[in-house]
């Protein structure tokens, strides 16, 4: 059965200037991700995992190469158009949750919907639904400082799902969590993927990698296993 390719990256290189020289974070990476896949990108520190994630997600333009995301040549778009694409069709989860401390859990989840122009009643209803989905229905009115690390990451996941993203990107989502809480997050990811969300996750966590359908191994700026 032919599955739709949602991410197609070809010949990706990324260099960063450093003290008159250049750091070669990516040295020619090819990667495809099909709709509904959960792909884990693993490798030692400094191998270029996060750099690759940022390029695939439209956050960081490659030095050379091409990225097609959801049928769009990603870096042919201007920064404003890429921003709009990230807001309306992608979701992001980071190692440090970076919720807005002055907003409640529900308001943090509402924020991307507000930026996308969703009406207030609709976004409040959806925020409550998403918090229920991630198991925090009873904490909607709490602010991040009053939530545990695991709860904050769940709110961040709910925020990432706010505008019904077609692809979810996660960079070390369990990096700041204890083992048990990390396992709860993995369970949630499995549920999300089971519901059809395409996911690309950068991780050091073997359990996260183990729950993915495909594991892409990186070393020294190159994919050394699992690419398609």
């Amino acid at each position, binding site marked *: 059965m032919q599955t739709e390719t949602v991410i197609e990256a070809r010949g990706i290189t990324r260099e960063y200037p450093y003290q008159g020289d250049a750091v070669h974070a990516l040295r020619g990476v090819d990667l495809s991700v099909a709709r509904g896949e959960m792909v884990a990108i693993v490798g030692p520190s400094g191998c270029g995992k996060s750099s690759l994630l*940022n390029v695939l997600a439209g956050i960081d333009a490659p030095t050379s190469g091409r990225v097609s995301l959801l049928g769009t040549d990603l870096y042919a778009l201007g920064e404003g158009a890429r921003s709009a694409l990230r807001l309306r069709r992608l979701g992001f989860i980071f190692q440090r949750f970076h919720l807005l401390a002055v907003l409640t859990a529900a308001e943090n989840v509402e*924020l*991307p919907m507000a930026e996308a122009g969703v009406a207030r009643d609709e976004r409040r209803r959806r925020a409550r639904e998403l918090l229920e989905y991630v198991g925090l229905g009873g904490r909607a009115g709490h602010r991040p400082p009053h939530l545990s690390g695991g709860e904050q990451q769940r709110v961040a996941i709910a925020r990432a799902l706010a505008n019904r993203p077609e692809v979810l990107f996660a*960079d070390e989502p369990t990096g700041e969590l204890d083992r048990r809480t990390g396992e709860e997050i993995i369970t949630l990811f499995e549920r999300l993927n089971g519901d059809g969300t395409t996911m690309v996750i950068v991780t050091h966590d073997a359990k996260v990698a183990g729950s993915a359908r495909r594991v892409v191994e990186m070393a020294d700026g190159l994919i050394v296993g699992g690419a398609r």
Partner: protein
Amino acid sequence: MIVSAFLKSLFRRRGRTLLALAGIAVSAALLLDMTMLASGLAVSFGELLGASGYTLRVTPKGILPFDSEASIDDGAGVARRIAAVRGVRAVAPVLGAQFRIVRGDSTGAPVFTVGIDPRSEFLYRLDSGRQPGPGELVVSVPLARDLGLKAGDELALAGELDVTLGRARATRRYRVSGVGDFLYDYAGEHSLAMTLPDAQAATGRAGSVSLFGVATDAGVADDSVVRRIAAAVPEVSAWSTRQLMGEMDKRLLYFKQLATILGSVAMVVTALLVSTIITIGVRERFGEIATLRAIGVSGRRVLLAVIVEGLALAGLGCVAGLPLGLWMAGRLDRILLSFPGIPARISFFAWEPRRVALAMGLVIAIGALAGCIPGLGAVRAPLAQALREEAE
């Protein structure tokens, strides 16, 4: 929603924000006071000049009112020629002089005395009693209070003082007809008014006048009457209130310069305060801002939110600064008015709504601009690098 979130963030560190607001309030108050000071004296003086309804002054050629002892000869003839000019409603002659009050063997300090036309009520308003007739005086309220004078009392005035013997010479006796509120006196000043012929006789300056006050017809422009008087009576100078305010402005240039310098300092302090608070706040939220940009909040929206923070800080500072500035202006006015020789009715600080609104608007605009700089830094920082730094 992001704008309101950023505004809430401003008050997350209440102590720091309140300190900054206090600083901005003081700067805004200083700027308000300097704005009021820059034009206060001239505006207040202009209002005082027209208080009695005589909005023009006619003086000896090239001389400002009471700027010298020069006088206009043939005062009566000049008065008739001025009165004949189209647009002139009334002419009030004044002769300035100095007399000393003699009480027993002692002779007091010189007292400024004006010879006037009692019908004009040009330089004072009668507080009690009646206008002076021949051989009579109106005394100022402080003089009446300090010497216990009332209508009907007698007063001896000396035109000269023999400095060798310390005795008064050319003493004449007058009866007090009334007590008056002298419009141009400084606080507590002793002043006298007598009829013009009495002043001319006592000073030996028959027919002389120091200046004229001129009232114009309703609806007639003062400047046009000034031009006609200058044409009809070329041996005198005619001044409108506007022109006298302009001369006052030239003499008080140092006030304007001081006000400009201190006002500029206030604006710089405001910019630095707002910029510092916003910069610290943006730096603390660098990760949040990078994450917001990563999830698709546009740089423009983030910049707008930061600018609104700056606007809010400056705006709230202005609101607090306004009553503080008005209170400070009142205190400073009392201090400045205690300088000798300043008319008590003058105010150094003028409330001109348009200028005050402009000054406060400037503070708020500076707040927005000061918020711009850290905001631009936050949205222009390479996103991937910002996310990486926050993860480390």
